[in-house]
């Protein structure tokens, strides 16, 4: 009984970690840079493929590759911001709604380009590599090392980013832009640099998430949609733009998912999480936290 409960909690936290990593990126992008990234889950899967390529071609341990993947994805984020038009969208004097509409369509196009590019290069078959072996036994409870690593990488990383935003001088600038982009510009904050940093961090988190995902599951290009949705629910639940909210929201979604998978059926988890989303949007659309 207790073993089952603990098992459910651990797998919930494990799923929640991956959702949190995606959700932090989505939340920051939407809160600070006013960009709704519908493709963030797909970018995570792209990160998985980068990890897969490095691990299979160089034979390195996935743990080292994770750092490389994160950096590459961060660089991709900066490139997207600088050269694919997001900077021009953010600099243009558009109404907030219009900007959201454009980024929504743009990122929807990204989903398509990305998934089909991945399917073109790697085929749509499931890919996997030998992951970290071993597991820890506590009583009857078996904890695979890879799951523990996922949880123990995510939580400190998210907390570290939260501390950077909360405590440092640079983070103050980010919070200013989060509150009011125009006013921050008038105060002499280089908003474009802040946006670039946000893109970097968001995609870095997606890269870490992708690396951790590929350690645990076989990958195929079409998985992104589900993760985008789960991370979106986590984002809304935690409050848009809030880092601690994204972490907490991700964990809640993960726990809800693992519990509903156990008591109902794996296929019904989407329905449960979806009802959660609708409920949050109708009852408390601002989410749990309003500040970063």
């Amino acid at each position, binding site marked *: 009984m207790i073993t089952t409960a603990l098992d459910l909690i651990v797998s919930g936290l494990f799923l929640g970690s991956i959702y949190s990593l995606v959700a932090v990126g989505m939340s920051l992008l939407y809160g600070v840079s006013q960009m709704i990234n519908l493709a963030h889950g797909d970018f995570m899967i792209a990160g998985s493929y980068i990890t897969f390529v490095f691990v299979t071609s160089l034979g390195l341990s996935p743990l080292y590759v994770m750092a490389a993947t994160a950096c590459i994805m961060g660089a991709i984020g900066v490139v997207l911001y600088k050269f694919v038009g997001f900077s021009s969208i953010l600099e243009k004097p558009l109404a907030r709604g219009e900007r*959201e509409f454009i980024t929504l369509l743009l990122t929807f196009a990204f989903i398509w380009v990305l998934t089909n590019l991945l399917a073109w290069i790697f085929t749509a078959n499931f890919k996997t590599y030998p992951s970290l072996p071993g597991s820890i036994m506590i009583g009857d409870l078996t904890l695979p090392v890879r799951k523990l690593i996922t949880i123990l990488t995510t939580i400190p990383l998210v907390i570290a980013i939260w501390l950077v935003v909360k405590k440092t001088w640079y983070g103050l600038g980010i919070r200013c832009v989060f509150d009011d982009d125009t006013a921050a510009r008038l105060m002499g904050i280089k908003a474009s640099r802040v946006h670039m940093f946000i893109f970097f961090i968001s995609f870095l988190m997606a890269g870490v998430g992708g690396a951790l995902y590929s350690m645990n599951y076989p990958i195929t290009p079409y998985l992104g949609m589900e993760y985008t949705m789960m991370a979106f629910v986590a984002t809304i639940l935690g409050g848009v733009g809030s880092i601690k909210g994204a972490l907490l929201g991700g964990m809640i979604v993960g726990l809800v998912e693992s519990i509903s998978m156990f008591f109902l059926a794996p*296929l019904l988890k989407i329905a449960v999480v979806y009802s959660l989303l609708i409920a949050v*949007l109708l009852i408390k659309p601002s989410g749990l936290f309003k500040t970063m």
Partner: protein
Amino acid sequence: MKVKIDLKNPLFLFAIVAAAVSLLLPAFAPRYIIQTFITVAMYVALVGAWNILSGFTGYLFLGVSAFYGIGAYTYAVLSPGMPYYAAILAAGAICFVTAYLIGMPFLKIRGPYFAIASYALVLLFGNLILYYEQVVSKTVGRWISMESLSTIYTSLVIITLVTFIVALLIKRSKFGYGLSCIKGNEDVANVIGINTFRYKCLAFGICAFFIGLVSAAITPRGGYIDTTIVFAPQIAFNTLVMGVFGGLGSLRGGMLSAFIISLLLELFGTKGDPYPFMVGMGILLFIVIFFIPKGIESIFGRVEKRLKKAK
């Protein structure tokens, strides 16, 4: 409300000729051409239906394949006991009811949240139906008795025409003005006495109704469906690209862009590797957003202005 029928208008004449030619096509065209034009008619109708919700009210609907799947499954369940046309209508009706009921909580969500929630509808309905199939009916997919190609084609063309006529009537009616008010500013629309909630639900229902008709009509072409075939995000994406390329809310633009893109899709997207073409579709959406954000409609507008000047 009156729709003026002006026989001298070249556009109107063109529409009649096009409708006549497309209805008579099965009489002389080979099978392959009919196959191609079934897809074309399907996308033209889907874009028309999509425009009733997204074009008129500005609510970006990314979940076309959700109702596409529901329509197809309804048809699959009903078709053994029902004639073809009756099953199509029943599928449409079920889509309407589902959309209306779902719309009640769902359309209270606004703006980008609506778009993402509607994107997730595909996953939601896909999983629910898969669950039902696995647990209750214990099947993986469903076999459907095939209909002749010309029957499918004719019914799709008729559905397409009806979709566009209904969309045109809506655009010119009081209902349509209400919808465009919602697009402009929903709070103001509410204040001036439009029952925005009912209007949105109704628009959503009508949109789903036509999507259901289309998918039910096309289902017997393949003879087999399962959840990955009918709940394909690809259908939603293609419809969106065509709708945006045609110009949001523009019926003629949507029709033209759906015709062109789906024809290209049939000619180049179905042979060999489909991925390069799909990547191209994504890049096309980029180009449209950055360079022609108002779509084909803006080109129409320019041409019309020039013609007026020439007169």
